[in-house]
């Protein structure tokens, strides 16, 4: 990415196949940043906020979060809420990537501070296209260092 500091992409996605397809398409778009995958919310929250839950572990990190809303152990919305409420992580861009296009849910995510909401299309060309464009988007956006 732009300022030379490595931006880590946190991918919280319980479906391994989706995770693999997302990764493939991001790489295809020429984005080579580190992708850290999490298959459930608990592990992702542990990584983001540390064992004490304060979020201090994220200080100094540059994070971009890819978030699926339907996780087995908790709602993705809860994770979004926590990320946007924590001083250390609230400036990290969050891209919500999910299969539902329920307008109320989309609204709720933006209200909670989601930066982008993308519905995963079922047809693969659309899916691959969306992810590749997301990759292009990643390559130009500025991600602040978490305080």
């Amino acid at each position, binding site marked *: 990415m732009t300022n030379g500091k490595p931006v880590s992409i946190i991918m919280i996605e319980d*479906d391994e196949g*989706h995770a693999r397809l997302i990764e493939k398409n991001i790489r295809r778009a020429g984005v080579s940043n580190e992708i850290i995958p999490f298959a459930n919310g608990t592990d992702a929250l542990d990584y983001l906020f540390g064992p004490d839950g304060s979020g201090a572990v994220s200080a100094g990190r540059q994070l971009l979060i890819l978030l699926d809303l339907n996780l*087995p152990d908790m709602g993705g919305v809860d994770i979004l809420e926590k990320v946007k409420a924590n001083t250390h992580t609230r400036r990290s861009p969050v891209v919500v990537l999910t299969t539902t296009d329920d307008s109320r849910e989309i609204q709720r995510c933006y209200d909670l501070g989601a930066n982008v909401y993308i519905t995963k299309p079922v047809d693969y060309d659309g899916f691959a296209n969306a992810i590749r464009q997301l990759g292009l988007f990643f390559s130009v956006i500025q991600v602040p260092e978490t305080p």
Partner: protein
Amino acid sequence: MPISQAFFQRSNALLLAVGIAVLVVIVATSLWLTAASERYFGEVTAARAVRSASADLLSLVQDAETGQRGFLLTRDESYLEPYTAAVSRLADQRVRLEQAAARLREVDPILQRVTGALDRKMAELAATVQATRQGDVEAATALVRSGTGKRLMDELRADLNAIVATSETELREAIDAQLTASNRLRWTTIIGAVLILAMAGAASWTIISYTRELVAARREVEVLNIGLEERVRQRTDALVKANEEVQRFAYIVTHDLRAPLVNIMGFTSELEAMFKPIDAYVEAGAAASPEQKAAAEEALRVDVAEAIGFIRSSTRKMDGLINAILKISREGRRELRAESVDLAALIETAAGAVHHQASAEEDGGIAVDSQVPRIVSDRLSLDQIMGNLLDNAIKYRAPDRPIRIAVRTRRERRGWVTIEIEDNGRGIAASDHERVFELFRRSGAQNTAGEGIGLAHVRTMVRNLGGDIAVRSELGKGTTFTVTLPPDLAAYRRSAEA
């Protein structure tokens, strides 16, 4: 005793009819007794008239005799005065007596004799007076001496006194009869009045009871009305809840089915792409470069295998989801059998099935406190509900302490049964309290196997039984599931259909 409308109408009509009959009898009796009284009064009057007429007649005859004697002694006309006066009134007096006696048949034979004797007496008196006037005192005196006059007079006196006596007897009898009649009249009136009062009392009692029952019935209807509103409200709440659940279910199902579909389509397209290097390698044949060979091998051995693996796991996942949906939908359609279930024994059995896992450690175990011995419900559903909840309590234990589970049953208001399953396991975060009941959703660390079906299934079954399930939990401390069930499934379904 409840009074039906028909009984009320019949009894009131009957009482009215009886009352009218009594009234008619009283009026008839009174009329009859009054008539009798009048008749007796007439008899009294008649007897009196006979009595006075015969007494007057006797005195008149005596007056005539007195005048005759005085004239015989003095031959002075002035002494004859009583005689002439008596003779002039005698005819009238005789008519009076005959008229009065016409109402008193018993005296007829005496009256015949009196008439004869009177004629002869008056003739004897007239003969002596005539003889005296002509100066033949001797003849007159001889006539008197013959005793005919005295004998006639004695007969007359006796007969007239007999008439007086008869009429007096008659008088007494008539007065007695009148007294009896008026006594009867009084008693008839009193008894009739008592009867009518009794009828009126009975009618009043029926009317008051009936009115009281009407008021009670109306009050009951009002209470039912209020209950009805409450029931409509509950039913509406349940429908709204069920509707929301159906929407949520449809949402989850479409989302969860779409996720593997994305994988299948994605990896199928990826497969197509993977065949390009293989295709190129095959095309090149012997002239293939080592790079081409490596790329083809890489694609064939690694990428294709990966893609096929994902496609296979995705189809398997879809199949699993469809099976789970089918299971829940079948559960919703299964015919429930309401039977009397020994709830305490059922819980003991369910607890026994998992007991070895709970009591393997020190201090661990399942405590059962059954206060509801029996419930009328579907045994199979209850078995599955208890089994699922107890399994969960053991599966989601807190690893750092021995498992302790408490099962309590107790009776709530209106007989509803509450079953509580409390554990000291890892607990559920407050934000997930609703989520745990949703299909394919789980809570907390995913360190145990599971599909996220159990609690969704339990909730479907509990609701099919007419009850509900709630959760109370604190993360890290433990969880309590509370199942509330109607005491009688058959009665509940009847009232739900009503």
